């Protein structure tokens, strides 16, 4: 009898649970019964964890729990320009809602934007200059919105000159003001004035269902935030994206799948077309299991190099790292081949210079600077050496070839693109001479600093993943050379350790670029000495190394006066790279390679590293919407 009662109680609990689930869902959304034929449906992995506030689509409010990369910022929202981290369909710089490039006055205190005509919001309203003005003014007068602070900092006034022209007057000269409206990963999205102007409290509004300028609208979503389904607008040709073609899929589903193993299984089973990222081992396994799946590169190293640059960051407010001979000695103690193998199982794209080897940067920076690097001379105090080894990428390719065979490229140019152009060769003798010239001495196998204390420090690194592996290997290599280095995993490295300067050295990155454009202002402006915090104070993004240099300031100040598209920016970029090599304030190591994968079973036309690198395949980047215009169903 008791068992019967227990069973009945269990059934009651189950009924209540299902009832609660059903009711919760109905409150959030009530999608009709539908099927999504695979020839009409693209299924994408959203790397974000399941949305914490699934029914929230107002992504202009900071911290309201709205998911971003669930398709909302890729497919629904839009803004003036996009700068692709790769080559782009017709160049990396897209005029999106803007009809043409920005126009500044002589001293960069005014900017005029001409907008496209005939663009409609998804509810049929026309997009006009009033929407842009409303976006800026609303956020300026409402603190706590995502772009409130940048707009308030820069904008004196904004006005609609006519329906399709906006004029900004700035508080101070700013040659990069357009960057706020230029999407690299994300940017200041335009708000629908006709919706938000009727809302009493903009910060509490859920914007559900969202009304956008992109070619898709919300079809339905999981009340627990695991999936979002978007449907192509019938009037997709009234969106700015139409210039690059009709998006192929009628439906696009974004699925949040926290476990990388499950992502792999779902792709093999045909339930995912694009994966944001896997582990290196996961990628190697995927291409073995699924003949239709591949990464950015057709073979080894598969991964897409992000325009970020993992590196060793020295805290320049720590006296141990203030002598550039010490920093150079530490660089020359490293064996890049072992670091590549330990972190990425060889699938790393190395960079000796402070620009990530991705997008258009190899063409703009790495290739043109090869001769300079090969001939670069370093004075160790006893001799002059040429520390650069342009063959390191080729050596790593040879190391992984026995395991991966034909998947490893043999063409030298292809190897350079995949494995990097070269790195510093490990030279223990030169490192020894540099340390000795800086006053260091060696007692047994222990390096002693000029003050007589052992040369010892902590290397703070990520708590897991490839950067953790990289940090551990670097610490090990320095320890083998007689420096007491302990790798310390730190989950708070970006949120507190780097900003507060509570570290000695770290493996992370302080260089991020546009990727598709040689302009380095994206990170470089924040490296000006005017932003370097006093010890103990919080350092603003991104000069985590707190490095000051008058020559660097000169470069930054000239960039500020140079128009974004001016070729002089590239020259200034080269000057920056050379200064970084001379001073070695950080040790650049490699690009952050993301093991994104896609499957060609149901769709073709994805970008490829070797033939059509027209867009970043990493799915949470907003620019991935351009991929949709190139996709065709395979009709399987």
């Amino acid at each position, binding site marked *: 009898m008791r068992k019967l009662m227990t069973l009945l109680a269990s059934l009651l609990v*189950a009924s209540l649970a299902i009832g609660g689930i059903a009711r919760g869902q109905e409150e959030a959304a009530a999608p009709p019964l539908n099927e999504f034929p695979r020839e009409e449906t693209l299924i994408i992995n959203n790397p974000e964890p399941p949305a914490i506030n699934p029914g929230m689509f107002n992504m202009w409010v900071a911290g309201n729990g709205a998911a971003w990369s669930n398709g909302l910022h890729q497919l629904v929202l839009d803004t003036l320009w996009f700068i692709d981290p790769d080559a782009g369909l017709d160049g990396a710089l897209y005029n999106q809602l803007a009809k043409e490039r920005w126009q500044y006055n002589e001293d960069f205190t005014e900017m005029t934007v001409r907008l496209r005509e005939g663009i409609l919001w998804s509810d049929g309203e026309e997009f006009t200059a009033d929407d842009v003005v409303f976006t800026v003014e609303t956020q300026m007068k409402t603190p706590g919105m995502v772009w409130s602070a940048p707009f308030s900092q820069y904008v004196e006034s904004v006005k609609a000159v006519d329906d399709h022209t906006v004029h900004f007057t700035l508080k101070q000269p700013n040659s990069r003001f357009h960057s706020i409206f230029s999407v690299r*990963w994300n940017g200041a999205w335009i708000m629908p004035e006709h919706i938000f102007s009727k809302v009493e409290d903009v910060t509490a509004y859920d914007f559900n269902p969202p009304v956008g300028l992109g070619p898709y609208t919300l079809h339905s979503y999981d009340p627990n935030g695991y999936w979002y389904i978007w449907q192509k607008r019938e009037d997709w040709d009234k969106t700015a994206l139409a210039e690059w073609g009709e998006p192929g899929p009628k439906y696009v589903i974004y699925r949040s799948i926290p476990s990388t193993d*499950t992502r792999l299984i779902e792709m093999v089973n045909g339930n995912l077309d694009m994966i944001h990222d896997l582990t290196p081992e996961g990628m190697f396994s995927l291409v073995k299991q699924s003949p239709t799946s591949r990464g950015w590169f057709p073979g080894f190293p598969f991964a897409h190099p992000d325009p970020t640059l993992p590196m060793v960051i020295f805290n320049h407010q720590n006296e141990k790292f203030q002598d550039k001979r010490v920093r150079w000695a530490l660089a020359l103690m490293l064996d890049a081949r072992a670091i590549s193998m330990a972190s990425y199982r060889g699938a790393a794209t190395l960079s000796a210079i402070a620009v990530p080897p991705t997008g258009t940067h190899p063409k703009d920076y790495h290739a043109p600077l090869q001769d300079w690097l090969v001939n670069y001379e370093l004075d160790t105090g006893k001799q002059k050496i040429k520390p650069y080894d342009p063959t390191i990428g080729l050596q790593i390719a040879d190391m992984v070839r026995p395991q991966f065979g034909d998947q490893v490229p043999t063409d030298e140019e292809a190897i350079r693109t995949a494995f990097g152009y070269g790195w510093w060769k490990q030279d223990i003798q030169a490192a020894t001479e540099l340390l000795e010239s800086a006053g260091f001495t060696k007692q047994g196998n222990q390096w002693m600093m000029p003050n007589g204390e052992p040369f010892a420090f902590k290397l703070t690194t990520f708590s897991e993943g490839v950067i953790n592996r990289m940090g551990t290997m670097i610490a090990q290599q320095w320890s083998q050379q007689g420096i007491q280095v302990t790798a310390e995993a730190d989950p708070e490295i970006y949120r507190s350790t780097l900003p507060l300067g509570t570290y000695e050295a770290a493996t992370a990155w302080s260089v991020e670029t546009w990727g598709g454009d040689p302009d380095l202002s994206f990170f470089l402006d924040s490296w000006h000495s005017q932003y370097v915090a006093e010890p103990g104070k919080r350092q603003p993004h991104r000069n985590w190394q707190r490095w000051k240099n008058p020559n660097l300031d000169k470069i930054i100040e000239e960039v500020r006066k140079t128009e974004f598209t001016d070729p002089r920016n590239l020259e200034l970029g080269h000057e920056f790279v050379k200064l970084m090599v001379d001073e070695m304030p950080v040790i650049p190591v490699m690009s952050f390679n993301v093991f994104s994968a896609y499957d060609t079973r149901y769709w073709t036309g994805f970008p490829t590293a070797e033939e059509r690198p027209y867009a970043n395949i990493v799915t949470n980047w907003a620019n991935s919407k351009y991929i949709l215009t190139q996709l065709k169903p395979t009709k399987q």
Partner: protein
Amino acid sequence: MSTYLVFALKRFLQFLAVVFTGVSASFFIAHLSPISPVETIIGRVSGQSAFSPEAVESLRQTLTELFGLNVPLHEQYFNFLRRFLVGDLGPSLLAFPTPAMKLVGLALPWTVGLLTLSTILTWLVGNILGGLAGYYQNSRLLKAFGIVAIGVQPIPYYIVAFLMVIIFGFLWPVLPVSGGFAMNVRPSWSPEFVGSILLHGILPAASLVIVGLGTWFLGMRALVSNIVTEDYVTYAELAGVRRERIVSSYVIRNAMVPQLTALAMSLGGIFSGTIITEQVFSYPGLGTLLVRAVNAGDSAVVLAVSCVAVIAVATAILLIDLIHPLLDPRIRVE
């Protein structure tokens, strides 16, 4: 009866003390976290966009004031207690200004549904088989089950969960390996939706049952093995009482008291969610919510989940304490 009322009142006061201590400890632990929700949001909005250092600093000040983090901790604590007494745990800092309890309410049915069913199923099957194995010590089938239980019980849960994903999602892909229900069904009382929920719950529930079964089985078998040597069991056998009746009414019933207490605590523990299950099977629930909140420094949601768990466990213990004297005369005497 008046003695029982005094006993009940004492236990209720203990319950209040436990809840107060538990939620206070949760508050301070949640606020001791080095993770700042403000920095989490700043990282998200500015990390990959063209944000100047001045704009970042301005946003930091705005968010700190908005979240009420610019007042001393003791003041935040008293504000929390005042709100807690009226059932308001404040807004989530990760989904501001959505109430933290609303997020908990959204995740709760999934966790309660999955864990209640799997816990009760595990408890029932484990105890019945354990009881039988303890009594019928010569049964080959039950001996074999005991060997399997001993073999499976020490395997870490995540290994079993991954094995199930690999077996039923990859090698023999017959069951869904992620999500709570299929994307093309409408949530309602329709057979499609209920069927979809059950189908998606099979693997997570089965993984919990497989791992949990051994513990109950072995515990019950040990208890029963001791009880069968008691005089009253021997006497019942000599008196010719039917073996089925001896097993059910004399042996298992007596062994059930500690198992019932453990069940109550397990059911109370349900409200803290099952993090690994939800992560492995992409299953919605409190565990996923808790992990996200901890990682983002959302102390309000961490507190909301913790408070629900503290109250649930304390209530379960209170109920068991109140019921025990009615079931077991020995406790009544004490």
